[in-house]
């Protein structure tokens, strides 16, 4: 059987759903190389290859063609009829029941009973084979095909019986015709004798003339009857031949139908029954010119379609599906799921109803089913540009199958993800530069290339943060204004990192916060300086330095400053009291100003802390009263 014949046969069949093939071979380019066995490939002529931006690694989906092209190969979508059947087959349990076993045994028995190698009378073979057909038809998986075959056989037998009867009739007719001919001959002889004898009287002459007339009419009747019989013989002959041919055509029609349905075992049975029924050596298949089966024989095999040829093709298909299943088993044993799934798919496409295909164990089917489903998922993921999911699936396929070649798909994923990420980066830069037009363009490009890119979430977060910052900015400005009104400069200083960005565009607020920060820094330095004095035991000096800071209006409410002064109070109480008293008397807080008393207290303060600037300043002020520098 030529390999090309099976290829053509396969193209006549509904195309099976093919698993993902990353090898890149195209059906029309390398059909023979796709199969490890070398001569059987299930292909469909691709209608059109779509252009790929990078190469054949990128899948292109054409819904109109209901196919997907990947790596130069075209795969039908799951919507194709056989694709769904194949997946159903993978998901189904193997037919290992007693019923199924009994059915397969019945088929074997029928084939054995009708085998040409069996030495038994043809009628006996026919009878024994025919008897087993109802048994096989009782199995649901047979779909009553054996019953159909049985009916066809019965019809053919009936037509043969009629033909035999016609033949008997024809023989009878022939006998009758022979008798009539004989009689006609005898009559014709008698007539001649009478015409040859002379007549003596007129009466005798008249009697002789009437006898010869009667004899002539009799001969004509004989001739007429003979002609009638011959016409009937011809008509019956034609009728008989036509009946036989009609029976053959009907029977052959069933055989070809079974062949197209891939019921090859039934085809073999039917061919054997055909030979037993008709047995005249006429094997020519009377099929429509130009039909698929006609092409199968004429173009694929280069010969005339015959029943024997059909039988041979069916046997070849059975053998092929068995060998494909065997190849599948070998691949599975080596964890070569990719090639294994292809072999099984080919076996299913050819011999779906063959025992070898139907008895593939459930565990192996499940493995292939998962692999096939993942492969289709990969194709879909690549189609919708979900490269994250595609990466996950590719990894899973690599773990499942040792012969899964991910080179092409890995390259495609890497290329597209790189392009997408570059668009995301550009969008981020545009957002930071507040170039919204460019941002939107880059965002759109990034989304088109890889819609599920995780880095797009970063852009969303940036946008959300920006939006929240706008809300936060308003709140911060309000807080700043409130603290400024309260003269709570320390709080403003503590939150300067929040306030500075919020008020940077407002000149007045910005100047205020700059001034506050500067002043607080002065306080901080003063606090550090005071701490340094205190650590050296110079508490009076520390205290006075802090008091000088607090005397400034902008520092008067600083909590830290007040706290530091309080901490020194215990060690500087005497000085503080003297200065406080001196100031009170100088300012006249409790009555008139008392220069003399104030001066006494300033002198006391100076006695306590000779370096007191407050005392010195107070003394100088009072001296200006007591004895001005210049006369005024």
């Amino acid at each position, binding site marked *: 059987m030529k390999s090309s014949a099976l290829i053509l046969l396969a193209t006549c069949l509904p195309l099976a759903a093919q698993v993902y093939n990353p090898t890149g071979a195209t059906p029309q380019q390398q059909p023979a190389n796709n199969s490890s066995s070398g001569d059987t490939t299930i292909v469909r002529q691709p209608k059109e290859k779509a252009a790929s931006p990078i190469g054949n690694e990128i899948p292109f989906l054409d819904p109109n063609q209901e196919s997907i092209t990947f790596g130069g190969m075209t795969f039908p979508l799951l919507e194709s009829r056989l694709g769904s059947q194949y997946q159903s087959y993978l998901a189904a349990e193997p037919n290992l029941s007693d019923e199924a076993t009994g059915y397969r045994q019945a088929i074997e028995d029928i084939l054995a009973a009708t085998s040409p190698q069996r030495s038994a009378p043809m009628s006996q073979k026919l009878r024994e084979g025919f008897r087993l057909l109802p048994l096989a038809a009782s199995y649901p998986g047979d779909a009553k095909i054996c019953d159909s075959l049985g009916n066809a056989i019965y019809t053919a037998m009936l037509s043969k019986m009629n033909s035999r009867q016609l033949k008997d009739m024809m023989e009878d007719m022939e006998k009758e015709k022979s008798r009539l001919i004989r009689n006609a001959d005898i009559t014709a002889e008698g007539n001649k004798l009478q015409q040859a004898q002379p007549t003596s009287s007129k009466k005798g002459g008249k009697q002789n003339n009437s006898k010869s007339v009667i004899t002539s009419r009799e001969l004509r009747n004989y001739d007429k009857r003979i002609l009638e019989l011959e016409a009937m013989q011809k008509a019956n002959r034609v009728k008989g031949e036509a009946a036989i041919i009609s029976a053959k055509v009907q029977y052959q029609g069933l055989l070809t139908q079974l062949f197209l349905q891939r019921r090859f075992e039934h085809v073999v049975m039917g061919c054997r029954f055909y030979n037993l029924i008709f047995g005249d050596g006429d094997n020519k298949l009377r099929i429509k010119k130009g039909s698929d089966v006609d092409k199968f024989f004429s173009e694929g095999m280069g010969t005339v379609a015959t029943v024997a040829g059909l039988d041979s093709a069916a046997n070849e298909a059975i053998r092929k599906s068995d060998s494909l299943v065997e190849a599948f088993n070998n691949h599975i044993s080596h964890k070569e799921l990719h090639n294994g799934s292809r072999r099984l798919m080919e076996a299913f496409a050819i011999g779906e109803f063959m025992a070898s295909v139907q008895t593939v164990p459930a565990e192996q089917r499940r493995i292939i089913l998962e692999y096939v489903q993942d492969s289709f998922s990969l194709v879909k993921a690549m189609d919708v540009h979900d490269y994250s999911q595609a990466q996950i699936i590719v990894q899973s396929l690599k773990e499942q199958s040792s012969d899964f070649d991910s080179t092409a798909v890995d390259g495609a994923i890497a290329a597209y993800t790189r392009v997408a990420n570059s668009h995301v980066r550009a969008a981020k830069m545009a957002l930071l530069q507040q170039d919204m037009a460019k941002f939107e363009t880059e965002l759109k490009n990034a989304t088109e290339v890889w819609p599920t890119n995780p880095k797009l979430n970063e852009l969303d977060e940036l946008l959300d943060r920006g939006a929240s910052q706008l809300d936060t900015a308003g709140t911060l400005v309000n807080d700043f204004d409130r603290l400024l009104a309260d003269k709570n400069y320390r709080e403003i200083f503590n939150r300067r990192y929040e306030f500075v960005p919020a008020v940077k565009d407002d000149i007045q607020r910005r100047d205020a916060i700059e001034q506050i920060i500067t002043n607080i820094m002065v306080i901080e330095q003063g606090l550090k300086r005071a701490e340094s004095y205190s650590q050296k035991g110079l508490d009076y000096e520390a205290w006075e330095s802090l008091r000088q800071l607090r005397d400034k209006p902008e520092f008067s409410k600083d909590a830290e400053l007040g706290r530091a002064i309080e901490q020194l109070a215990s060690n500087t109480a005497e000085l503080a009291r003297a200065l406080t008293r001196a100031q009170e008397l100088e300012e006249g807080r409790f*009555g*008139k*100003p*008392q*220069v*003399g*008393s104030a*001066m*006494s*207290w300033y*002198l*006391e303060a100076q*006695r306590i802390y000779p370096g007191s600037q407050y005392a010195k300043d107070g*003394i100088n002020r*009072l*001296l200006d*009263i*007591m*004895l001005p*520098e210049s*006369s005024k």
Partner: protein
Amino acid sequence: MARRSRSKKKNSNQAPMLIIGIAVVVALVAAGFFMSKSSSKEFSTLQEIPIVDYRDNANSLSGNQYRLEGKVISKQRWTADRGQVVAVQVDQSNGDSGALSVVIPPELGEINIERGLQYSMHIEIVSTGIARAVAVKAK
């Protein structure tokens, strides 16, 4: 015979001189003592300034005159024609102490007032509690 030493002759002439010298010194000391006594006594008619009261409410002492005895701790201001102001530390016998500033008018300018020396002053409390010297005696 050995000659008599001249020291014996000299010594007999100097003894009365010595006695006289000692007497003069004692007299001077006594005079000085009495003089000092007589000066404090001079301002003694004045009440010693209540330094605590002065420090707390000098205005209440305005118009009064007091005796001030203390040590000049600093010369706070000096002018050529309008006098000077000195700070005086007062430590009184009752345990009160304090400092005050005293305006020395120009008419008392011939008196040398040195920092660190003790002085007795006749002061007057003028307006706003300022102490103004009327007389100053060094101790």
